């Protein structure tokens, strides 16, 4: 009995030691919560959950690229692209400034499928450029980032898109439980389902093992018979799917879409992964880690907002947290010498 208690204590201590930034932020949240009313409210909690949910989906997509020593800078623009396409297709049939007046009102399920297919295509294109044209992922996705943004501007005519079908916004902003007291946003469940799915893929499937192997040593993986090309294409394609899903949800969540949506999200996602322990040298990273990383980032934003910090300073603080988190994380590896 005592022994197991000690073990649990040691485990908790290890977790705290492993994630000093996360702990710091939780403490900060408690302090802010005590100082400001409304911080510990269901509305705020729900807000945090749904923000985190969308960012988490994007970070899951990017995590595969990072674990295989790649990256995906087109993530944010792909989210924007999906949001624009979803927005246009989900506009009400009788909406005055409907962008595609010739198009009929579409079923939002069908729209989701279309958006996902487009995301898949973008991912396949990234995977193709990285594996077949041998362009380094950083440059390849820098290129597609710009291309995707350009096309977003063209199809949206650089106009904000609104007037969505009611069912689209109300379904995605829906929640379980009463609005006033305890409730959980649907988005939270979407995030949990995909989190579990990715955990399963990363730990229990051949694809996951191949992904870690490529990140650990791509030459050795190829020599061991891993189809590295196909595995990488699959990783970038999956990432594309996740961005598309996130874009589709984000448009509904915001009640509007524009080409500039999702700008910079790739960096937030990469930062979240890195804070969560995904190693940029490859082969290391877990789904729970990514979740913690993203959550920490969103928590930080909310804390700053409640403290009434000038929003422009947010960038400064977020940047500091990224550097600090990674610096602390890296100490674990250099301390062993």
């Amino acid at each position: 009995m005592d022994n197991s208690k000690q073990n649990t204590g040691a485990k908790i201590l290890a977790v705290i030691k492993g994630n000093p930034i996360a702990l710091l932020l939780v403490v900060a949240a408690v302090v802010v919560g005590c100082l400001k009313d409304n911080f510990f409210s269901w509305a705020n909690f729900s807000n945090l959950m749904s923000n985190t949910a969308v960012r988490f989906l994007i970070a899951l997509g990017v995590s595969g690229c990072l674990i295989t020593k790649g990256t995906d800078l087109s993530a944010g623009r792909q989210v924007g692209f999906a949001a624009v396409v979803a927005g246009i297709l989900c506009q009400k049939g009788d909406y005055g400034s409907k962008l595609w007046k010739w198009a009929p009102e579409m079923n939002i399920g069908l729209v989701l499928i279309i958006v996902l297919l487009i995301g898949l295509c973008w991912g396949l294109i990234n995977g193709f450029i990285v594996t077949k044209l041998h362009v380094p992922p950083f440059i390849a996705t820098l290129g597609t980032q710009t291309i995707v943004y350009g096309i977003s501007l063209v199809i949206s005519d650089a106009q904000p898109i609104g007037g969505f079908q009611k069912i689209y916004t109300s379904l995605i902003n829906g929640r379980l439980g009463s609005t006033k007291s305890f409730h959980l946003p649907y988005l939270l469940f979407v995030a949990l389902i995909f989190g579990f799915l990715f955990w399963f893929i990363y730990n229990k499937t051949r694809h996951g093992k191949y992904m870690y192997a490529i990140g650990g040593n791509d030459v050795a993986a190829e020599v061991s018979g891993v189809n590295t090309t196909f595995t990488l294409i699959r990783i970038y394609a999956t990432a594309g799917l996740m961005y598309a899903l996130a874009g589709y949800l984000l448009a509904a969540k915001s009640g509007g879409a524009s080409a500039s949506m999702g700008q910079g999200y790739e960096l937030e996602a990469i930062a979240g992964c890195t804070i969560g322990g995904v190693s940029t040298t490859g082969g290391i990273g877990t789904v729970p880690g990514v979740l913690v990383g993203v959550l920490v980032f969103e928590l930080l934003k909310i804390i700053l907002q409640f403290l009434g910090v000038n929003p422009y300073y947010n960038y400064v603080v977020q940047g500091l947290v990224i550097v600090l988190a990674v610096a602390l994380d890296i100490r674990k590896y250099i301390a062993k010498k």
Partner: protein
Amino acid sequence: MSEYVLEMNGVSKSFPGVKALDHVQLKLRAGKVHALMGENGAGKSTLMKCMFGIYKMDEGEIRMDGQPVTITDPMDALTKGIAMVHQELQPIPARTVGENIFLGRYPMKKALGFIPIVDHKKMYDDTAELLKKVRMTFDPKQKVGELSVSQMQSVEIAKAVSANCRVLILDEPTSSLTSNEVEALFRIIEDLKAEDVAIVYISHKMDEILRIADEVTIMRDGKYIGTWEASELTTDKIITQMVGREMHNLYPKRENVPGDVVFEVKDFTSINPRSFRHVNFQLRKGEILGVGGLVGAQRTELMEGLFGIRSHTTGEILYKGKPLKIDRPKDAIDQGVAMLTEDRRGSGIMAVLSVADNISISSLNQYLDYGFVINGRKVENLVQDNVKKMNIRTPSSKTLIKSLSGGNQQKVLVGRWLANNPDVLILDEPTRGIDVGAKYEIYCIIADLAKEGKSIIMISSEMSELIGMSDRIMVMCDGRVTGFVNGSEATQENIMALATQFE
């Protein structure tokens, strides 16, 4: 004045979970070659890293000329006259020989009397001087990436010499050198001895040690076993001290009986005109075919060509008379061919992954439930089977492979290939950088596999291993097969004669 240039006394060093060094001593005399021996994991490298200031020792002292000194980091070691040539060379390939040698301490001059700039002329003149000292004739302005491994090593030695070192550590300097190059290295060592440099020589090669060393210190499991005059020692004595048990045979008795020809290569030619060309050979069931030759004979390239890592233009590979189409390693694996590559770190292990992940990666299809879920228990069984069969020493299947010794890593990789139950197994330098005990274990595994009827191709640069383990030896020179020697008739001389048959 002490009789020792440098002495280390009572040195201890612990890492989380292991005591890597336990009161170890080492005493070096000027102008003497001091061999440091022990199995991998015995603590030789750790001791050297303590001397070179890479690790901080927990206990113990270092004295130079009898005076206690503290060495804080490698830069400090260099200024005190201690230089180290690492086992894994770390040159900057895209820069010149001169720049590599003077890296971090470029000779400077003042332009226009006040702007400090690098004095390239002095740097290259000094480099030329140094290269002469290590008996090398190449251009100081050549890019290091264009040099051969042995030339790179000479550059590293020149670098060490340039620091006016009094103690030079050579960590397995001959592991990738040919016989001629080893001779050249020994001449350099003789020169350095004449200049009163104390040399620490780490190697697993007995004949070298007995030839070049003046004194030998042996370590085992992080402990100091003793120091002897090299003249008092024999190979058997050294091995006995290293492994702590008597060892009579270097090679196991082989009971394999080569059967019919199963694997045949015809007119195999690389796309690179300077690599392997017009290679023909046959391999029998249950046969161990050794592949000998000098470094640069394109043996590895040939095998990588057969395995689909490198491309070929013409040529055929037949398995039991049926042509195999191999464009990438996966094709070879699917058709029953496996290859243990030469560069364990570069193309073998996945350092940050576990033993279980490393051993199962090329046979994951066998452990799937419902066609897609990996059954952890089946993977664990695979690991445990191999741990038992090959005596792999690992705390658990979840241990990261990078924390195992070289010999155990190699066994994990052999296990990776055997999991696919291949018919033809290509082993490229299977015992490189592995200690004597583990070497013997690997030889036993190879002999057992041949007995089971597997056909084995083994590249080796160690003559005695080649002769001791092969049924037949194929010798290559400069991309061509220059001849075959039967294992029973093989001698160093007839192999060397074929290996040097340049056109």
